[in-house]
């Protein structure tokens, strides 16, 4: 591909790069914050704990502001050709779809920073002297996810996925204990294999098509290639996305990582990379859909492949969750199951399908952060992570109890919560596709997926069940306040600790959208329907 470059071409590509940089302001500010964090961590010796989060949050907020501005700018565009701006000669492409996802990442970054604020105080394994690294890596995840959502070139997809992965490996290890080490090692091993497979898939795709730009006309659409290797190439590449989504068969890392990593890190793991992977997957699928893969004379419909993956993800996530007692592990399987629901929306492959996927991931962000805030609040109050220890908490802390009920009901997908609307839209999209194509496997998936919610009810309800239906029987169970005192090195030793006010406000801020988006679904859908999907 390397050709002799003359000055004119060099100038053209230089100006392209300069022009592209203007579109990258949100990311640039995040990178600046990233650098500033490292410097501040080195330079400051005092009060790092309070300044570092401010830097991280400031960077995220600035970035958020620029994203909103970009969103408004792109909203005016109604022409398909102008809706997507290629940056850096097609490495990235910026469109309203990507911007919406990036807003979500920024939001999850901000939430994760808030989650982390008092986390260092509540976990005795948390190294206080590494706060700087912690926030730096956290920003790294957000930056990587943002690039993932924009990538339209297999190379940039790979690079951004790796950015997220490496940051995640580090963050998983942040408790510096046995569980964290084990989880991190598992994560690195699985992640390494997954990215190796993906890279192999990408190399196969490059070999067959001669380009890595998924939007270029030469990519996959051109030839009537029926080589089996091409199918393998596509499947392996998708495998890399599924790994980030924690979908079957690349889900095995999730439970251990969720259990071992710090709670704020898990909260962002479960949202940002997963949503970013959804964005990449939809981009990749929309680039390759026209190309029906076939091995010899056997046609492979990618929708069937995704349907099988979605079904398996739903089943494994939901059934495995039934046996979990650790709240974080339960959430891991729950997030696997949610990947299944998102995949259902992806495979519906229509405008409504895309709308519903975007709606779903938005609601999912609030639900999951809500659930992890709940786990964190309980943990900081009582030191419990096991659901069977949650006995009587609902009565003891009414706020926690009510919050648990709403969040869990939303995760199941029951009205009146946005979780229901999200599932309704996803399955409506599936029904619409079924109606148009008449493929009966779509209908089976619809029934299958909906009945999975009945299974999920059983384990999600376990949390309110223990909180309300079981009573604290023994003295230790009732006397939970002692937890903090038992742990050495903890400054605050007051006996009755109420949740800080900002944490309650944060909790309400997470619960409110779950109810609001049910009663005013059109509010969010109006935003989403401004996104132009290019198929």
């Amino acid at each position, binding site marked *: 591909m390397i050709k002799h470059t003359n000055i004119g071409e060099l100038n053209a590509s230089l100006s392209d790069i300069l022009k592209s940089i203007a579109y990258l302001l949100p990311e640039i500010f995040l990178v600046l914050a990233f650098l500033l964090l490292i410097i501040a961590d080195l330079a400051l010796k005092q009060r790092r704990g309070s300044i570092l989060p401010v830097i991280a949050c400031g960077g995220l907020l600035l970035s958020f502001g620029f994203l909103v501005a970009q969103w408004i700018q792109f909203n005016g565009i109604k022409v398909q050709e102008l809706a997507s701006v290629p940056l850096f000669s097609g490495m990235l492409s910026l469109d309203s779809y990507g911007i919406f996802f990036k807003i979500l990442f920024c939001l999850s970054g901000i939430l994760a920073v808030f989650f982390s604020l008092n986390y260092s105080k509540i976990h005795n394994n948390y190294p206080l002297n590494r706060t700087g690294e912690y926030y730096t890596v956290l920003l790294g995840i957000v930056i990587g996810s943002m690039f993932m959502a924009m990538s339209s070139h297999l190379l940039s997809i790979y690079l951004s996925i790796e950015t997220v992965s490496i940051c995640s490996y580090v963050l998983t290890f942040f408790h510096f204990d046995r569980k964290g080490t084990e989880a991190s090692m598992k994560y690195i091993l699985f992640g390494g294999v997954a990215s190796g497979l993906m890279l192999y898939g990408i190399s196969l795709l490059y070999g067959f098509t001669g380009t890595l730009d998924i939007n270029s006309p030469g990519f996959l659409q051109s030839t009537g290639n029926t080589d089996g290797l091409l199918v393998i190439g596509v499947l392996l590449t998708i495998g890399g996305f599924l790994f980030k989504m924690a979908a079957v068969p690349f889900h095995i890392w999730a439970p251990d990582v969720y259990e071992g990593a710090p709670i704020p890190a898990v909260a962002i793991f479960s949202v940002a990379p997963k949503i970013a992977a959804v964005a990449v997957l939809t981009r990749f699928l929309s680039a390759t859909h026209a190309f029906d893969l076939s091995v010899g004379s056997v046609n492979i419909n990618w929708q069937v492949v995704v349907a099988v993956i979605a079904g398996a993800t739903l089943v494994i996530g939901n059934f495995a969750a039934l046996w979990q007692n650790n709240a974080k592990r339960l959430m891991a399987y729950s997030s696997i199951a949610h990947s299944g629901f998102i995949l259902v929306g992806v495979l519906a492959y*229509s*405008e*409504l399908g*895309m*709308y519903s996927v975007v709606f779903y991931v938005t609601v999912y962000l609030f639900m999951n952060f809500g659930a992890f805030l709940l786990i964190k609040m309980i943990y900081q109050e009582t030191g419990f992570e096991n659901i069977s220890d949650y006995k009587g908490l609902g*009565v003891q802390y009414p706020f926690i109890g009510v919050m648990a*009920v709403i969040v869990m*009901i939303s995760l199941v997908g*029951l*009205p*009146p919560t946005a979780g*229901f609307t999200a599932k*309704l839209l996803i*399955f*409506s999209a599936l*029904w*619409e596709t*079924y*109606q148009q194509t*008449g493929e*009966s496997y779509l*209908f089976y998936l*619809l*029934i299958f997926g*909906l*009945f999975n*919610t*009945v299974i999920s*009810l*059983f384990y999600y*309800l376990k949390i309110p*069940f223990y909180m*309300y*239906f079981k009573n604290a029987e023994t003295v230790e169970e009732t006397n939970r306040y002692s937890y903090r005192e038992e742990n050495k090195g903890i400054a605050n030793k007051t006996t009755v600790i109420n949740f800080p006010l900002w944490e309650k406000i944060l909790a309400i801020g997470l619960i409110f959208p779950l109810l609001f988006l049910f*009663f*005013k*679904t*059109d509010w969010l*859908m*109006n935003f989403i*329907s401004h996104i132009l999907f290019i198929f």
Partner: protein
Amino acid sequence: MANHLLSFLVFIPLLAAFFLLFVPHAKENFFKWVILGVSVVEIVIAGLIGYLFQSQPDKGLNHELAVLLPNFHFQMVEKADWIDLNLGSLGRLSIDYFLAVDGLSISLIILSAVILFIGAIASFTINKHLKGYAILFLLLSAAIMGCFVALDFFLFYLFFEFMLLPMYFLIGLWGGPRREYASIKFFLYTLLGSIFILIVMIGLYNSVIDPIETGKLAGIIGEGGTVTTEQLVQVQAQVQAGTIPGTKLVHTFNMAAMMNSANFIPDSILDTVVTSMLWGVPVRFLAFLALLIGFSIKLPAVPLHSWLPDAHVEAPTAISVILAGILLKIGGYGLIRIGFSIFPEGAIHYAWWIGFFGVLAIIYGALNALAMKDLKKLIAYSSVSHMGFVLLGLASLTVEGTSGSLYQMFSHGLITAMLFLIAGVLYDRTDNRLIANFGGLTSAMPHFTAVVIIAFFASLGLPGFSGFIAELLVFLGAFNSATVNMLIPRWMAIVATLGLLLSAGYYLWTLQRMFFGEYYLREDIWHSKLTDLNFREYAMFIPLIIAVIVFGIFPSLFLDMVSDSVNNFVGFVLNTGQTNLKLILGQ
């Protein structure tokens, strides 16, 4: 004011629940009086609705709805846009806040208000976590009322599902020893049923358009102007011809629109004209079956009833009363309002099976009741048996049968509330309900025994009580069906009469074992505890007894109210059903 009565019915309990959030825990009695007060207000509103309800309505009560669905006389209509979604290539989706009442729902609204009032009085024995109890009770009341007045499927489903959560906690927190098991079983079972309903709901709104909104979007009907029937027919014709582009179609959850096959998008899965098949069965039949299963779980019909004895037995008295008195009726009401009305051909096609499962429930429930050792379980199974009559009456698709079903739901609500209160009276005093532990109670509790005798005789269908009229109408319908529309054979009615005999059997036997004969209590300590009825208990029993007798002697009070709607309903289901059946099976 009068235009928003139905909204008041739903929102007053909700507002009260919200208000209670800010009342401190310690004011225990205050909570009891609030739920009592709210239920009195609900009774007043329901009474007002009953008073204003026109049993022979003038034509054209409501402009839009009358155009949309001419034969159904919905009254007190409240309609407002709620959610309006852009679904991309699928067009738009409008979800309305749409409430109305007609003869099919009026009786159940009144019943609900009465039973909730009784439930509120019965709640005075609750003594722990009263704040939570009161809030959940009020949420449950709102959801129940909402179910009976909603005419938008989405809204109905919202209330239908929202009932589960308060019920789960009410059984699980205030229930008996096995409450945890019973509450989760109840939740899972009913959620399973609602998934069946949800699937049909998704299918329906994908297939059905709102002709008025579509007409407005397509420019056939002017904004703000009144809608005429001609315009509507024009829109429907264009939709059927496929000349309106997909993005201009307004999908809807409006049940009134779903009842007209002209509103189905051609080639959609649930369209009547072009039959889609799945597993060799028309999809519309499957949709009807899914609704049948979903609502039968709630009803409950044998063999989907097994959650009921557990939930009833473990629930506290007040909640058992509400569960049996109202919640079961939502199953029957849902079948009438949604299953039969939207898929009439399914109702005709599967009439034999519906009737069969009705008879099965009657006999199976009665036989089980005979075998029960626990008084509350006996009553629970008698509920299963009596709800079988609802299915049998509906299956007959005659005016008598359908009126009988409605009458049975109403009357069973009143009677079964009394029966559960009776079990509650014993349980409150002794913490025990086993039939064998009591004997000759007449001597200790003469007034209570009188009440029990009235309730038992009302339940077994003695003339003079409302249960008799209900069952008589169902039998008439079931017998006549063979001559009128040939839907269910005569033997079903004959076998069902066996249920009457059996119910006489288990009630009289229980009466004999527990109340007559030698005075006997298993524990000596109970002797001092078994006092006769107190004022609070009289306040619950006397209104119910009066109602049961009044509706047993003056059935016209009830039948006048419903007859117009029932006539329309039966005519509609038979006519539309036959037409659709020809279309579906003819191909």
